[in-house]
């Protein structure tokens, strides 16, 4: 009886690939953060360039966080991706509409 439950649960477990990829992702995300802070702290870099780089690194950071830590890169995560993408589409539409047409 107890075996039945655990057998069913075991099936659902994904195969783990070991910590290697996670360590790389961890170092990469810390690196992104350090660069961002260092860039602003240095104080001698062109502001427009800093804006551009910050946004770029933020986007990369999102991919690292979502992909590795939230397991989006793994199989069986179609619904979270669909959900997040529709959220992004809706929010972008609202922001663009509000910014260009509907703001008063």
């Amino acid at each position, binding site marked *: 009886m107890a075996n039945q439950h655990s057998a069913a649960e075991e099936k659902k477990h994904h195969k783990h690939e070991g910590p290697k990829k996670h360590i790389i992702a961890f170092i990469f995300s810390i690196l992104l953060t350090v660069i961002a802070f260092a860039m602003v702290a240095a104080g001698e870099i062109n502001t427009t360039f800093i804006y551009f780089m910050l946004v770029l690194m933020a986007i990369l950071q999102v991919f690292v966080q979502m992909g590795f830590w939230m397991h989006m890169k793994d199989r069986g995560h179609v619904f979270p991706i669909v959900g997040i993408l529709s959220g992004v589409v809706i929010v972008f539409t609202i922001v663009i*509409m509000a910014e260009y047409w509907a703001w008063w």
Partner: protein
Amino acid sequence: MAHGHAVKRYSGLMDWLTTVDHKKIGILYLLAGGFFFLVGGLEALLIRIQLWKPLNDFVAAHTFNELLTMHGTTMIFLAAMPMIFALMNAIVPLQIGARDVAFPFVNAIGFWTFFAGGVLLNVSWFAGGAPDAGWTAYAPLSTPTYSTTHGLDYYVIGLQIAGIGTLVGGINFLVTIINMRAPGMSFMRMPMFTWTSFITSALILFAFPALAVGLAAMMFDRLFSGNFFEPTNGGNAVLWEHIFWIFGHPEVYILILPAFGVISEVISTFSRKRLFGYSSMVFATVLIGFLGFMVWAHHMFTTGLGPVANALFSIATMLIAVPTGIKIFNWLFTMWGGSIRFTTANLFAIGFVPTFVMGGVTGVMLAAAPADFQYHDSYFVVAHFHYVIVGGLILGVFAGLFYWWPKMFGRMLDETLGKFCFWTFYIGFHLTFFVQHFLGLMGMPRRVWTYLDGLGFNNLNLISTIGAILMGIGTIAFLLNVVITALKPKNASNDPWEDGRTLEWTISSPAPEYNFLQTPLVRGYDAFWKEKMEGKKAMVPAEPIGPIHMPSPSILPFVMSVGLFIAGLGFMYAKGDYGTGIWASILNNHILAIFGLAITLGCMFLRSVYDDHGFHIEPDELHGDKGVKA
């Protein structure tokens, strides 16, 4: 036994306070939503009595503002939403062949936070005045400058707490429908009510955070002297309108989509026909959900957005008529050639179709921006949204209640009294709101306390008030029906309408606490009907009889919502305008607020550190239920 710990079983009141069973939570939602429906209905009657003749002074002008605000807020957030959740809780897990929702504990939190928020909102009546800025609470009317009482504080905090309940409920149903469908039930085999609940939950997920943000900003304005919506300090009043309607427009689709689902189920069952154009119904539902987010500014045509924005939102709004029209024709074609039975549930469903079309037509009229400048803030708008919400959602809820009552309570509602309820409510509804179109076109403004004689408003307002009383009689007939039915023996069969098509009709009425002894195998759309057509009396089981895992009951959700309730009161009265002596220092230093939050956070802590794996019902305990023979 594999799991040694004793099973906690409560009875009586404690059972209802601790339950995590979706069927019982559904009944709790129905009770609470029904109670607030009566409160909102009473407010509506008082509004109509005030307006029955010119220059009436039945209620004071200020009380009238409170009544109309609380009528709208109560009906939308505290009556309509919970009644939808009542049906979703009671039926969706059964329709997909699941034993419960994905997160039973969170489900209980959803109910109790909604209830705490609803009670908090209504406490305002006894605490120096209810909110009075309309259910939309437009700034600057709702800012501290123009609203110095605590009424709007109750609105902001009460809705924030109730909103938590709705949001977690929506997430719960998304996860449930994605993950817990029975083997064989693909997305395109899901019953229509489950589909619409799914899309509604997705809309809740995206729309309610907008409300939460707006209310939080409003809370900062009101409680901590913020300036989000305070124009004199650099805030922007129109920002509130945008935020409110970015939430508010999807909200009306959140309300109407489950009603569409109910109507689809009821019409299909009582026409003894497969739903016409099932896949186009699904497509239309998804499309309505998507477009619902792109039209919010049609509530703000007269704000001065400019011709480009008005034209865009006008077109987007009219586009929604296309998928809605698809649905209307599908219902008509489902009935066409079917052997229709005019049960009470089906009367409500058939009555829904033309009523909703009328609400839709005035919707397209209002979507035409130039014309809207005439209709705006007139009774025409009032007539329109009551046609879609009462004539759409409430008729749908009534249809659903009559249809699923045996599955929820094990007893059939009385049909004769039910038909009396339908005709009085339906005629009363049209009497009340049809004439309001013309009142609006004649120039009667919305939310007006009274009107002068000789404007031609008198007769139409009188007719409207008579209609409202008739709706009240219909509602009383329904309550009477519930009481009479409750006294009858619990004898409804598994499939009391005999034409049940979906999985909920394969199990006993009411369903056992584990729903399905064996998870059924779904072999097509209208799974039960398909088996019936092949001469079988039951579903093919997808698993052998085995121990059934059940979640443990818990009092924590209730205590958490009590904590939020106390915290809400604590924050409201920390402005230094209430109490004296030690009481004032407790309030003004946020001690009461912190105490309330500590209760909630303490419960979250307990829940996190104490692992509760639930319990199992073993096969030898399942006496009386011999499993599925096939």
